[in-house]
């Protein structure tokens, strides 16, 4: 094979491709190095001239500001790094819940575009076109306005079952932690082990006899049954901390602030429009003959969907879906516009208080880079696993 490739010139001449490549790269590296040096030098002199201190030592000092919303108690005497941690958990909370909700809503709407019902198709199309073509920031601001102005005061809160929805946000009952719940969790864990074992066994049976056993409902039943059993053994603790209307506000229970709701609802609805398109293109990419072949083999519609259509559609769906998840996570940074204390908002407050622009922005970038890169690593791993195995 080597005889077909042209002989490589090793000479130090401009006519040698390798030599030219080397020179180009050298020039590029020197230019970039100079630019970086120039920027760094300027930054250092500017900081010295303006008396700006540098370094991350400020993270240990007291933050001096309160955070309206945090998963664990935070007060202004606690150090900056804990404030950043609160911001980080708030960002992740939005991202995780948003990704789950978006996937559900987006898939429903994407599948809805194929409905036999023209009204469903039309509504889904209108949804996608409207929410895709209006900036997400504008949508967040609109939702925030609706949640803070459109809803009644907390005393006249709308009652949705055991929940209250008002200007103060959404209040909902939360279970009171009791030791009996531990038994329930143990039961779930045991159920998970059973479910995995069952699936292994079912696969073996399938390989042996060709009879396909239920791969989803039976494991799910096992999981739930053992969970409930554990919960019963633990004494079936079922006390709920339910919200009640107090004299001035809604008390007790868990609550979600209007800022959180606005960011979550806004991002979910916006991203779902894109996810719907991803799902639609994925389903469309599967050749029609595939489903016909599946039914010719005698698979029923759900089997053909699960065993033939979905595995092929998922290959097309997963990479762009990853992008949408990342976009949702990154767009959660827009929460800064409506005062939800995510990591960007905390960094912004810290920046204004301490003047450490470089450090604060570096922290924000680091947070998003880590989440983005790790998500894409995870999804790439899943992608290679599910990609077509060729020869």
């Amino acid at each position: 094979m080597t005889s077909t490739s042209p002989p490589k010139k090793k000479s130090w001449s401009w006519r040698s491709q390798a030599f030219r490549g080397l020179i180009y790269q050298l020039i590029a590296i020197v230019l970039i190095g100079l630019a970086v040096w120039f920027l760094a030098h300027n930054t250092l002199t500017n900081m010295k001239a303006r008396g700006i201190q540098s370094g991350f030592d400020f993270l240990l000092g007291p933050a001096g500001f309160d955070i309206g919303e945090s998963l664990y108690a935070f007060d202004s005497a606690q150090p900056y790094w804990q404030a950043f941690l609160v911001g980080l958990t708030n960002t992740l909370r939005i991202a995780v819940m948003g990704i789950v909700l978006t996937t559900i809503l987006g898939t429903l709407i994407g599948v809805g575009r194929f409905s036999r019902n023209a009204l469903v198709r039309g509504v889904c199309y209108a949804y996608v076109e409207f929410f895709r073509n209006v900036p997400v920031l504008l949508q967040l601001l609109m939702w925030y306005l609706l949640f803070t102005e459109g809803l009644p005061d907390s005393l006249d809160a709308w009652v949705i079952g055991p929940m209250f929805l008002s200007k103060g946000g959404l209040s909902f009952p939360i279970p009171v932690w009791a030791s009996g719940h531990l038994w329930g969790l143990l039961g779930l864990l045991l159920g998970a082990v059973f479910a995995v074992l069952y699936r292994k066994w079912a696969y073996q049976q399938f390989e042996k006899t060709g009879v396909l056993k239920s791969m989803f409902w039976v494991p799910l039943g096992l999981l739930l049954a053992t969970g409930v059993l554990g919960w019963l053994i633990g004494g079936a603790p079922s006390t709920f901390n339910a919200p009640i209307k107090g004299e001035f506000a809604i008390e007790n229970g868990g609550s979600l602030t209007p800022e959180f709701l606005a960011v979550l609802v806004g991002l979910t609805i916006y991203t779902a429009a894109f996810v719907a398109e991803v799902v639609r293109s994925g389903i469309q990419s599967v050749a029609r003959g595939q489903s016909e072949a599946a039914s010719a083999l005698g698979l029923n519609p759900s089997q053909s969907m699960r065993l033939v259509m979905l595995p092929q559609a998922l290959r097309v769906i997963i990479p762009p879906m990853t992008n949408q998840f990342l976009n949702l996570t990154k767009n959660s940074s827009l929460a800064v516009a409506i005062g939800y204390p995510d990591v960007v908002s905390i960094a912004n407050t810290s920046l204004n208080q301490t003047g450490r622009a470089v450090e604060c922005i570096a922290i924000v970038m680091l947070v998003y880079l880590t989440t983005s890169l790790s998500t894409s690593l995870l999804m790439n791993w899943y992608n290679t696993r599910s990609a077509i195995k060729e020869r």
Partner: protein
Amino acid sequence: MTATLFQPIAPRPAPVQHRGLIAWVRVNLFGDFVTSLMTLVIGGAILYWLPQLLSWGIFRASWAPNFDACRVEGVGACWGVVTEKYRIILFGRYPFEEQWRPLVATALMLGLLVASCMRAFWHAWLALLWALVLGVFFTLMYGGSLGLLKVETDRWGGLPLTLLLSTLSLTMAFPIALVVALGRRSNLPAIKTVCTIYVELIRGVPLISVLFMASFMFPLFMPEGFSIDVLIRVLVGITLFAAAYMAEVIRGGLQAIPKGQIEAAATLGLSYWQTQRKIVLPQALAMVVPSIMNNFISTFKDTSLVTIVSLYELTGALSLALNSDSDWRPFKIEGYLFIAAIYFVFCFSMSRYSGWVETQVNKSKLR
């Protein structure tokens, strides 16, 4: 020989009608039980909500620029907020008497954009037209010559700013994206690494952190006593951001070019740049036109984020117009709907246009 008895064949049912409104309704709305149920539920919801929406938005709405008329019980939407404040919403903090200038500038820019989309204008002199219109745009907006009052860039705002940011950042991002995409496919390890780092760094962070960087850190980067206008800093930020995304799109197109094409070019004796310019890029770019249009749309929408670093483009200009005026503040939702409609018109026409371009590009593949 038995006599065959005449046995009439039962008449066949008439063929199901496949055309016409009734047939369409029967198939699409009442095909089977589930479909009919869905039709009833969704149709019912639409019949219930739509009249309410129409009555709020149109029939009971108040159109007069008078906020007292909006406070009357039973009045729906208050579009008076738009009739009263549209000049601030559209032009931001630009001096009131001079607002014909951004109006003319915007109209020119829009005309240029529409013209560039049309086939009849795809000639070499279009570039000249661009230079001309951009020149006029800046002269009109900035003033300071031809007897025009000088208006500093920090007073620019509204629709002209949105258009300026998106148009300029996209035109500048495209060549950068081309170079970076080629760099990522290059055989030279150092150049490849640099391009990869750039793309991954930018794509890994949200746009606002890039904008924050442009507005807070950029002044630190520059030599002492040398300051750059905040508008240009933000423009650079958006450009770098858009370029990274576009580079990935173009790289996708480059990857889809069969290796044989490049080998054929090498056989013909074309150099690297000749190969790229004459063989690879025309095919690759045609392939990724839809994705590039998507990129354009998202960049256009993303310009709304500059409001977070205190530039008053459409979204920012709206807050500017209504936050300071307690009489009109309750009617902010109408203002939001107004600019949402502006964004929608732009983005939707871009996506329609992208569909048209796609069919044009695919013509060569039709048989």
